[in-house]
């Protein structure tokens, strides 16, 4: 790193440190959670500026009932489940996908949903289910995968959609008086797809500043600085710090792709409960590829994990070390809740990057 860059970052840091009021800023993206923890920014901020982690990790916000439904499916049906690696260790109420695989379930880890199509092509005699999880950044690629499956006439492929969209959850957080958030560090990747409009609705209604921020240390410092500047002037606008990637209009092509295949539906979020229009289900034209319909997957009741405060952590009501299990009964090696499992979960980030004394 050149000295100029270093000087600039130190200047930004000093400007942030000299902020007089108090501010709680929330990020809602797992990559931000990790980048902030890795950079050590939190430890350099004065006590009047708090950085909270919101519901930004797609693995973490997946409801316990949905995870149990997926596990029940692989126990009962003879099929191949293809999933992203992070889902393997997430504990269900009684088991995890990792445990099911060790007992013989055919579960494969993929890096791209298109890999699941390959598995379906290679195993025409078997049903192949892709576990669709992720926000607006991941969903367009799943939509393309489904369109491709239709084009190829693959009859043995379906998607178990646990996809979610970010804005309705943000609205819930802004409207919850128990959650004190003064400004939002908006997710860079998701915003590259959705653009500024969904945040403008929020800033108009709730009068809280939003800054779309990148993931380098310098980006995050600039993002925080921009939020504090708005707070200082009592403004509430949407600004883009991450201009090298995010355009105000977002990516209309990605959105159209998503809309061709998916439609909004109510979805359950861990910690936030049922939120209307916050999930995505397959449109009627794709109903044959909707795992839930194809196999008649039942809704499973949400059974909370005893003692686990992931719900409170996900809404920024408490910080990970405030959970009674953190660092004691719940560690990355033996996680109790999803925030400790996912490598972008708030608890895992805190645990990994905080000195021992802060580990509880």
């Amino acid at each position, binding site marked *: 790193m050149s000295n100029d860059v270093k000087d600039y970052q130190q200047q930004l840091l000093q400007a942030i440190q000299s902020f007089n009021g108090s501010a709680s800023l929330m990020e809602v993206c797992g*990559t931000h959670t990790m980048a902030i923890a*890795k950079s*050590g920014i939190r430890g*350099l901020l004065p006590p009047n500026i708090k950085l909270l982690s919101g519901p930004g990790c*797609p693995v973490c916000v997946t409801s316990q009932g949905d995870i149990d439904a997926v596990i029940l499916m692989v126990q009962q049906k003879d099929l191949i489940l293809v999933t992203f690696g992070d889902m393997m260790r997430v504990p269900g109420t009684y088991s995890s996908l990792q445990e099911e695989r060790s007992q013989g379930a055919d579960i494969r880890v993929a890096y791209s949903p298109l890999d699941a199509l390959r598995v379906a092509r290679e195993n025409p005699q078997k049903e192949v289910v892709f576990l669709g999880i992720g926000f607006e950044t*991941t969903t367009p690629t799943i939509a393309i995968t489904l369109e491709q499956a239709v084009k190829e006439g693959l009859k043995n492929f379906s998607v178990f959609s646990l996809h979610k969209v970010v804005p309705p959850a943000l609205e819930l957080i802004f409207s919850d008086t128990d959650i004190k958030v003064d400004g939002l560090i908006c997710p860079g990747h998701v915003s590259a797809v959705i653009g500024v409009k969904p945040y403008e609705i929020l800033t108009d209604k709730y009068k809280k500043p939003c800054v779309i921020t990148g993931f380098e240390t310098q980006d995050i410092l600039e993002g925080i600085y921009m939020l504090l500047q708005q707070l200082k002037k009592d403004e509430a606008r949407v600004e883009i710090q991450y201009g090298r990637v995010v355009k105000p209009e977002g990516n209309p092509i990605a959105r159209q792709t998503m809309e061709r295949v998916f439609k909004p539906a109510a979805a359950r979020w861990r910690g936030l409960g049922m939120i209307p229009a916050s999930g995505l289900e397959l449109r009627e034209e794709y109903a044959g590829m909707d795992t839930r319909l194809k196999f008649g997957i039942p809704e499973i009741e949400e059974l909370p994990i005893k003692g686990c405060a992931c719900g409170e952590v996900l809404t920024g009501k408490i910080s990970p070390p405030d959970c009674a299990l953190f660092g004691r009964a719940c560690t990355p090696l033996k996680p109790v809740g999803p925030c400790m499992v996912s490598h972008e979960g708030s608890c895992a980030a805190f645990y990994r990057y905080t000195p021992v004394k802060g580990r509880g």
Partner: protein
Amino acid sequence: MTQDRILMAHGSGGLMSQRLIDEVFKQAWQNEIMEPMLDGAILQMPAGRLAMSTDSFVITPLFFPGGDIGKLSICGTVNDLLACGATPLYLSTAFIIEEGLPIAELRLIAESMAKTAREVGVKLVTGDTKVVEKGSCDGVFINTTGIGIIPEGIDYRPPRIQPGDKVIVTGYVGDHGLAILAQREGLTFSTPVVSDCAALYQLEEMVAKYGDAIKCMRDPTRGGLATVLNEIAVQAGIGIRVKEAAIPVAPAVKGACDMLGMDPLYMANEGKMVMFVAAAAARDLLFDLHQLSPTANAAIIGQVDAGPSGLVLIETELGAERILGILEGEHVPRIC
């Protein structure tokens, strides 16, 4: 060879096994110790302490940019012996081969092992092959076991590390892990990422020159640099402080890791060494390492502290300090 793929019969112990050994392995590896084809190798060993190490290699794909499983199986065990301060001398190898593997691929792997062993100056002196049914293994699994001789006065065990010692890493970290991931998942980058797979036999010269000024060495394979630093901190009962900005990472690897949400400090290396060195010798050693091609990007990344014992701390670019923990579970890309 008439058949072009491995059949179960190649593992029968009969004529087909013999042919496979003669035409694939013996041809590539022949040397006077293996030649009599006894049940074991009979070795003349120089006086001194022996180092012995074993490693099994399972990798998909078998061939990757920068190497293949054969080269890897030699480099891995040779580097483990070098880390003990030993001069590697002899290797044994055992193959578990999946039915259906093209024999041409097996031949390429055997030849690659022979070539690497020649470069390093070690001999493959005894071996074994087994064939398993299709689906019971992934192409081929290779084990190599090596022995080497440790020069007088060399003892590279962690308890010798003292506060004040410097930590050197011999080049860019994370190349191998990312190259394999990219090859396996069909990810392409504008700058191709190549595995660093290499046997660091040139380090023998450094051992001879610097002797006990080098305190300890370890090759940061699975789990990467961060994991090795943690292992040593615990074994030596010391604290380690490193600077993020000093750790060499190739720009292409850094860019790709940022994109995938992965950390090069946790990604495997197959041609790197972490060296703990007395402070007084560190600069000279670094200068010498820079003159050797496989260690040309070596850097001093930090130093040993009296405490807190067993803990590795990293100073971030911003100047904050945080824990550099050990890898828990698997290192997987982000979903988003």
